[in-house]
């Protein structure tokens, strides 16, 4: 398919499946978003309390540190990390459900949103989690080499030269790997491949078409982010209103006014819930479109390999509807 055909196929798919996709994404994501928002709010409230106590102590130099500061910091950090973990798991489940809906529609075997939801938490979910974990370990492992080189510059200047060579190589390698493994999710979800098999299968699909896939994924991702930013700007303004109004208050203060120490704490406290809502909404919108892009490209790559009809050609592959 040419780029225009891909756009056309993608939008037709969105038109046919969006209500079901939204249903799956909302049912999975909404409860998780509520938990995430509560956790970011809790984190920011804790952080604000600590800032307030520290600024109160600053007025009394020499006073003892409030008890359990580090413990509170650690528990606040754990709460935030847990919130992000929940969000990530919710995203994975929603991605599995949306990918399954998209692939089934492309193969003329449409599923209801309930069927997709039921499949979103099974073996496919665990395999996708395993794939993401393994991919992250590999990517971090590769990036450790240049990071280590930079860290060892103090030991010897030769590590600086090594870093200058290794950093661009590592970036290229990571980009190559991420792109070759871009279709592991549709492979796992639709072909029900294992974790290790999905890496090989995705690489074989991309092989010989690396630049094309890179260009299309980059273009569509940028456009998707732009579309999400257009739609969410007013929503973000409303969600972050508590924080924005505090900024307005600060801006409106006269020049010689002594700043209130509680102001910084109030600013941090007002950030929590709004930030959680902003992140949840933008991730929800992204998860309803991004898997569709990969699914359409996945079928296009399969068609270019002649996997559907013997009479199809790479220029005009006979794709399923």
């Amino acid at each position: 398919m040419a780029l225009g055909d891909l756009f056309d196929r993608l939008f037709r798919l969105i038109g046919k499946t969006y209500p079901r996709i939204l249903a799956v994404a909302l049912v999975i994501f909404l409860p998780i978003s509520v938990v995430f928002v509560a956790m970011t709010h809790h984190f920011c409230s804790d952080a604000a309390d600590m800032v307030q106590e520290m600024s109160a102590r600053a007025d009394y130099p020499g006073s003892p540190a409030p008890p359990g500061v580090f413990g509170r910091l650690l528990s606040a950090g754990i709460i935030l990390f847990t919130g992000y973990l929940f969000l990530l798991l919710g995203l994975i489940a929603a991605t599995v459900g949306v990918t399954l809906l998209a692939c089934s529609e492309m193969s003329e075997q449409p599923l209801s949103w309930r069927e997709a939801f039921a499949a979103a938490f099974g073996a496919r979910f665990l395999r996708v989690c395993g794939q993401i974990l393994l991919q992250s370990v590999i990517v971090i492992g590769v990036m450790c080499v240049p990071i280590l080189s930079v860290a060892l510059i103090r030991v010897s200047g030769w590590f600086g030269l090594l870093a200058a060579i290794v950093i661009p190589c590592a970036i290229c390698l990571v980009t190559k790997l991420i792109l070759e493994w871009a279709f592991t999710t549709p492979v796992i979800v639709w072909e029900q491949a294992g974790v290790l098999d999905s890496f090989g299968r995705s690489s074989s699909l991309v092989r010989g078409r690396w630049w094309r896939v890179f260009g299309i994924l980059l273009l569509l991702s940028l456009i998707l982010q732009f579309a999400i930013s257009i739609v969410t700007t007013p929503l973000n303004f409303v969600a972050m209103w508590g924080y924005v109004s505090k900024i307005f208050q600060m801006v409106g203060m006269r020049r010689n006014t002594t700043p209130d120490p509680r102001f910084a704490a109030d600013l941090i406290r007002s950030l929590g819930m709004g930030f959680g809502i902003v992140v949840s909404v933008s991730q929800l919108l992204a998860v309803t479109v991004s898997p569709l892009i990969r699914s359409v490209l996945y079928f296009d790559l399969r068609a270019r390999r002649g996997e559907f009809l013997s009479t199809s050609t790479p220029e005009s592959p006979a794709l399923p509807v």
Partner: protein
Amino acid sequence: MEAGRTDPVTYDGSWERKGRSTATAAVAGLLGIGFVYFQGQSILLIVFIVVSSLHHQLAEFSGDFLERLTGIAQSHKAAIWSAVAFSQYLFMLVPTLWLVKRWHSSDVGRYIRMQKTSVPAVLLAVVSVAVFLPANVYLGNLFMRILRIPENLIRAGTEIITARSTPELVFLVAEVALTPAICEEVFFRGFAQRTLERSVGAGSVWIMGITFGLFHMRPLGLLTLSAIGIALGYFYYRSGSIIPSMAAHFTNNLLVVLFYSRSPQIAGFSAALERISLPWTGITLVFSATTIYLFHLATRSARPGTSTEFTAPD
């Protein structure tokens, strides 16, 4: 698409030949050109401001952060608006015309409906938008009061659009009123609404009107911008010509520039508008709606079933 309308446009573009969805073309073009425009504008702004900083010796600005920011914005006003105008022509108008020619029709002018229409229709479109200005100002002030936005922040924000001399006023009219009237109308109405109209008919007026409001990325102005966008879209749809919406867009932006101008001749008018009360705002709204209704009657000849009919190709 409304039945019975015959369009003299030849759909010989690559998108048309392959029988693809026109709704997809509208959305893809809107997002693609929109993305290019915003990124290009950001780059141009940086370039123009850097050049302006090198060319002019920056004065020392005293005062708090906002006062200094206002001073810097004032000194770089020409650079900022030049960058915005350049980016509108370079990254919005040119890509739109290119896309229409490549995807839809070699007869670009006819496709975007750059054709003459009746003078009363143009005048009524202009008057209806002009009379909407008091409601626009009233709503804007109401939001500022409810949300307790500080005066110094409002002053800093409006400084960029304030003309302090006649040459500056002429410059701002060219950059703020004329340029968007051409570029944004061709993009939003001439291409996006026109293409979407072929799939969803009159619904394209509402969709593109709200999209117009969203694209400006000004949450506080979303309501009024969307209302103006819907009105402009309606003028375009109803008249079958881009001229009324261009004229109305120009008028709206011209009045905004004049409103913020520091010219003594206009100061009284601006002050009166600032103090306008809710009953008078209601009266101007009714007058605006009446003018739109008169526009509706005046453009009856462009409705389906008359000589300017067209058939949808899809």
